[in-house]
């Protein structure tokens, strides 16, 4: 598979996941502000922006409407859902010949709703649900129509890495914010019901962190996502040696996962923001390593435009 196409598929996976997660986070946070009379709207919005790695606007009048504008609709801010879905479509257009027809149409029609303004015109909660629905449609269509070849591995690799990274961001922010943050975090991960069933409703920090970080059966947990990413990398290196680990990316992810798995939850809780920050750095380093290892061919341009 061409390096350039592999890179496009990797990023389609990431962008769609990012749009999906951003919609979940926005949905939960806006409801939280609405339902909690004690909530400081501006501070909450600022915290959400910082989790998403977005620069908060300079002025003070930050409210939920502004937050939704920035993180959902503003195409000029790269963290927004609109920008992610546009980027996913751009990547899909570049990899057009490798995508199945229904997968392409699912991505393209999603983007068209943004381009035509119909996403912006939706009521807030309906719009955010629409994003989650579209992400599910895209992922489901990919699941049903893509051959499990390299392209699929890159697509899932992008999705799982992004998911691990987003869950880590949420946990870090939950540790920083007071009050009901654990329930909120569970809901933002779409994990509330799964958690209640698995842990019998004990919503205390130790249980929630243990679940979202380390549960081996819940697809949104960090450990589950990282394991998925590692499996993709292993499949991509099927001709690897029988001993040892071939690529930097796998080594980085494996180490980051062990770092979480082999520490006690109490230990992790003592410095959750620090641990999550280290984990996110590992995700970024793994992305760099993947880019160098698999996509490097697509960037080199040797010709400098002189006749020899």
């Amino acid at each position, binding site marked *: *598979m*061409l*390096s*350039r*196409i*592999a890179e496009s598929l990797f990023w389609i996976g990431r962008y769609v996941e990012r749009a999906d997660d951003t919609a979940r986070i926005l949905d939960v946070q806006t409801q939280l502000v609405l339902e909690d009379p004690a909530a400081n709207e501006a501070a909450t919005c600022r915290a959400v922006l910082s989790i998403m790695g977005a620069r908060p606007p300079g002025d003070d009048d930050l409210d939920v409407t502004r937050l939704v504008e920035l993180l959902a609709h503003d195409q000029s801010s790269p963290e927004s859902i609109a920008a992610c879905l546009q980027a996913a479509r751009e990547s899909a*257009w*570049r990899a*057009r*010949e*490798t995508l199945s*027809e229904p997968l*392409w*149409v699912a991505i*393209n*029609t999603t983007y*068209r709703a943004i381009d035509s303004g119909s996403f912006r015109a939706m009521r807030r909660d309906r719009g955010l649900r629409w994003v989650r629905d579209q992400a599910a449609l895209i992922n489901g269509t990919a699941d049903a129509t893509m051959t499990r070849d*390299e392209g699929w591995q890159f697509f899932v690799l992008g999705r799982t890495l992004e998911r691990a990274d987003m869950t880590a961001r949420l946990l870090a922010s939950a540790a920083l914010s007071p009050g009901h943050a654990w329930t909120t975090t569970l809901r933002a991960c779409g994990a509330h019901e799964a958690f209640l069933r698995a842990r019998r409703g004990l919503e205390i920090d130790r249980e929630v962190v243990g679940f979202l970080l380390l549960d081996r059966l819940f697809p949104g947990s960090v450990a589950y996502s990282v394991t998925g990413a590692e499996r993709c990398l292993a499949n*991509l290196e099927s001709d690897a040696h029988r001993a040892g680990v071939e690529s930097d990316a796998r080594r980085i992810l494996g180490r980051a996962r062990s770092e979480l798995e082999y520490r006690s939850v109490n230990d992790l809780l003592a410095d959750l923001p620090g641990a999550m920050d280290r984990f996110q750095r590992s995700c970024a380093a793994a992305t760099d390593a993947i880019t160098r290892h*698999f*996509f490097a*061919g*697509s960037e*080199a*341009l*040797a*010709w400098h*435009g*002189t*006749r*020899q």
Partner: protein
Amino acid sequence: MATAVEWAPDHGTRAYDEMYDGAAVRPEYDALRSSLDTLDGADLRSRIDTLATSYLDQGVTFDIGGEERAFPIDILPRIIGADDWARIDAGVQQRVRALEAFLADAYGVGRVFADGVLPRSAVVSSGAFHREAAGIVPVNGVRCHVAGTDLIRDEDGRFLVLEDNVRVPSGVSYVMTNRRAIGSVLPEVMSAHRIRPVAGYPQALLAALRAAAPAGVADPTVVVLTPGVYNSAYFEHALLARTMGVELVEGRDLECRRGRVLMRSTRGLEPVHVIYRRVDDEFLDPVQFRADSMLGCPGLVNAARAGNVTLANAIGNGIADDKLIYTYVPDLIRYYLGEEPALPNVETWRLGDDAAREEVLDRLDELVLKPVDGSGGKGIVIGPAASRSELDRLRAEICAHPRAWIAQPVVSLSTVPTYADGAMRPRHVDLRPFAVNDGDRVWVLPGGLTRVALPEGELIVNSSRGGGSKDTWVLAGRTTRPVPASAPAAVVPAPEQASPQVAGPALRDLTGRQAQQEQQQQTGPGPC
């Protein structure tokens, strides 16, 4: 329910209308007209709306100046009868064979010049003549793996050749997508006809490309080379790559080493044997052509000359579709094939001839003037529609560069009813059939791209000038009617009732209860 498809034929012009013979409907269009007459206006309009949005959703688009637009398609197909098609098929094949012979000769020994059929100067003065192509001998003798021949229908209903395209003819993707789109919005109309299919094109193209592989390569790797996503025909490049199951590469994906072409893959560099390139000659190889081009790959031409990679279509083909050479094609057909042309050219003046130029300069206001190297309708001046000052500028231009222009009479292109302003109105069309040459035979896709000029009276049909398109139906002749296969009777017997083993708990529950309810009804008091 009154029929509301409003037909607004125009009997005022000289143009040949393909649907109406005066007032009556021509036989090819009988079934189409009567199927459409059963639709009511609201139904038709909703189908037209579906058609309009479906191309945007599917991304069947082209790019104009960075803006992506849906390729416009009209709901009413254009129909070509079996006899007409047989002539087109023969004529296109013949032209491609003659042009292949001409290219081999012109880049080879030049017999055609020595025999005085065509002056050598006409070829070497062409902007598309590349000495770089001279050393490259195609493995199976093919230089025009794909050709697109533009045809028009004159006032008498005769098909004439307007120009040849043997460099990178585009539009075939719309032939295939148009068929699918019309099939989904007018299924009952389509099923009232027997239409020759167009879906086989990618397989025919792939077979021809594989047949052109360098000698000794048993299982060649074929790729499609695109200038990139901002090229107006990117959709087509992607569709062809996808339907052939090959990689779509950009110049930056390729690398030439020691006379071989490799592509950058996730597993390192992999060899490439046949490149169906959709990049123009000038941008293909900065070593040989434009040094500033990033669209191709340095070293491609050397790899082709070394016989390690096949470029399809070949470099330097432009001399065969130069509009000055076009005027000689009927002679080339007679010279190389010993046949009379099956499809005539449009009458054309060569402005290098003094007498012809004198006559043309006197009659500029009644002729069409075309630059010989223009494509996409660029630079064409239609005399009757041009202003005084435009004609003066043109006159000076022609006197300065007579080789650069040809002149033709204004041919009123035929019309086909087209949906515009709420009714079916006649609009001018042309036709581009596509031919694929695998070295053994030239195959013409039954159909082709019908382009339609949407503004009333407009004669330029290019999509870059706001033109639309129509699905083009070539009717199967009576003699080729396939024997209808009898349906295999009851090979797989349908189960009489759903087997409980295959239903999940919910369905089991549902059907169980339903059965109980039915039983209860049966055992209840009868209606006596």
